């Protein structure tokens, strides 16, 4: 706990909560605005499916760069001030990595919970007719939290071992572009299963079909891709051990 409170003290004035808060506000306003402009016949009876897929899409666009920013802001304070050589004489080196990861996992938990809560709230506000798909909402929460955590581990590992924060930030921007472009391809495409940033959409329990002739969109449920997600989790575990190991070996 002592180390955790120290980390809280360290990030004073860094406003990391604001990074997540701002992104949450943008997503909320955007989705609220798009719901309000949607013609009722387009999504009647499918409003929650529309919300789930839209939020997953926005997560895949916004969260990669958000996570890169959060990791960079958390790690940059150590790199800028050359603090590793001091910290390593006062606390176990692995704890530097773990405390930052733990702290950010709390931010992600709060963000994922807030976003998940947004779904029934918007449903209530717009008086949607579709019954609340509870299981799908749980899956959405799980996907948002786990994918963000894995991507954060990747970003933190890079931010801690890179002397310059540009590379991790570029990777985050790249992730955002992948998020945008992947939406134009079928989520079952094998190539996209190799890209971790695409898992917000792969883990979404809803898919959509656009009929260009009638210009109609149909939302439909898809089974959760357990095998692909298991592979993704294994990737996350690998990145965690690999990133931590490189950080532990890094000379300060």
């Amino acid at each position, binding site marked *: 706990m*002592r*180390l955790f*409170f*120290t980390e809280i*003290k*360290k990030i*004073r*004035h*860094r406003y990391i909560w604001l990074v997540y808060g701002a992104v949450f506000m943008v997503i909320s306003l955007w989705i609220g605005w798009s719901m309000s402009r949607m013609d009722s016949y387009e999504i009647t009876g499918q409003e929650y499916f529309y919300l789930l897929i839209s939020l997953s899409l926005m997560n895949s666009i916004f969260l990669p760069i958000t996570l890169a920013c959060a990791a960079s802001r958390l790690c940059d*304070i150590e790199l*800028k*001030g*050359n*603090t*590793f*050589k*001091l*910290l*390593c*004489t*006062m*606390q*176990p080196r692995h704890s530097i990595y773990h405390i930052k990861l733990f702290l950010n996992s709390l931010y992600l938990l709060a963000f994922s919970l807030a976003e998940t809560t947004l779904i029934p709230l918007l449903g209530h506000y717009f008086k949607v007719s579709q019954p609340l798909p509870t299981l799908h909402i749980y899956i959405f929460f799980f996907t948002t939290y786990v994918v963000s955590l894995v991507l954060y581990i990747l970003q933190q590992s890079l931010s801690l071992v890179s002397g310059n924060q540009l590379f991790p930030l570029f990777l985050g921007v790249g992730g955002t572009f992948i998020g945008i472009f992947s939406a134009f391809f079928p989520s079952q495409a094998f190539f996209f299963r190799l890209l971790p940033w695409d898992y917000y959409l792969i883990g979404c329990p809803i898919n959509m079909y656009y009929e260009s002739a009638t210009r109609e969109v149909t939302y439909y449920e898809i089974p959760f891709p357990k095998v692909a997600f298991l592979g993704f989790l294994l990737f996350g575990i690998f990145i965690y051990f690999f990133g931590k190991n490189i950080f532990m070996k890094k*000379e*300060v």
Partner: protein
Amino acid sequence: MNKNSFVIQTTNLTKAYGKSGQTKDVVNKVNLAVPQGCIYGFLGPNGAGKSTTMKMLLGLIKPTGGEISILGTPFVSQGKTALNEKSRLTILKQTGSLIESPSYYGHLTGRENLEIICTLKNVPTKEISQVLSIVRMENQQDKKVGHYSLGMKQRLGLASALLGHPKLLLLDEPTNGLDPAGIQEMRELIRSLPENYHMTIMVSSHLLSEIDQMADYVGIINKGQLIFQDSLLRLHTHSKKQLRLRTGNNNRALCVLNENKINCTMDKDFLLFPETSDDETARLISALVQEGISVLRIEEYQKSLEDIFLSLTGKQVSL
């Protein structure tokens, strides 16, 4: 000296970089012995291995071989950490360090920085005012460290190192980047610590004059090897006196003196004699005068510390 009275002791401490077969020893079999309560000056040119050695002492770098004992506790044995992480940190809790540049959080104030160190070291925050007063930074404590000058950052680094009243202080080039007034202030501050707070200080520098004015004991490292280690007084005794003589015809004088079996060497415009007694001096002057060689100048010459350093390391003092 009793073995236990050494606060730091290393045996064949080695650090090599590179792949097997092409390794380069940055620190090569260094045997440090830092006596208790002294200021130990660790002197060497840039790239000699000072920082690497100090980082190994703090456990920041793993040695390739050798042993380290800190405050009487084996720290590293056979190149491997002899302690678990918890014990290592317990030992290091009794040490303070300022390695290379100061460590700080630029977005926080000086006091907030010290509060973080207090929490990590488990030291009461009331010590903050005390260390700020030691480094004379009470008036700047509420300013963001990012706005500090380098000298202020160095002093804050020293204040961080002093938190918890460590028995041992490791300072790596603490006067780097300071202006002359700052250097003098830092030097005085360091000099006062062993007496006032019963600390042992190991301070590294590439400036001989700095170590000369601060240290009681000196270790000189060059190309990773410890080439001298003893008291500063002992280092000064290396500077043997010599007699320097300039004549109207040095070449002829050299021949005459050699014929009279007087040992001397030629050095530029001077003839150099090893330390000679008054009788011997009178005899050689007489020999030269009898041969009609005019004696222009005679002086006693003593090697400066710089000359000794140069002869030990083969490098200029302005390292």
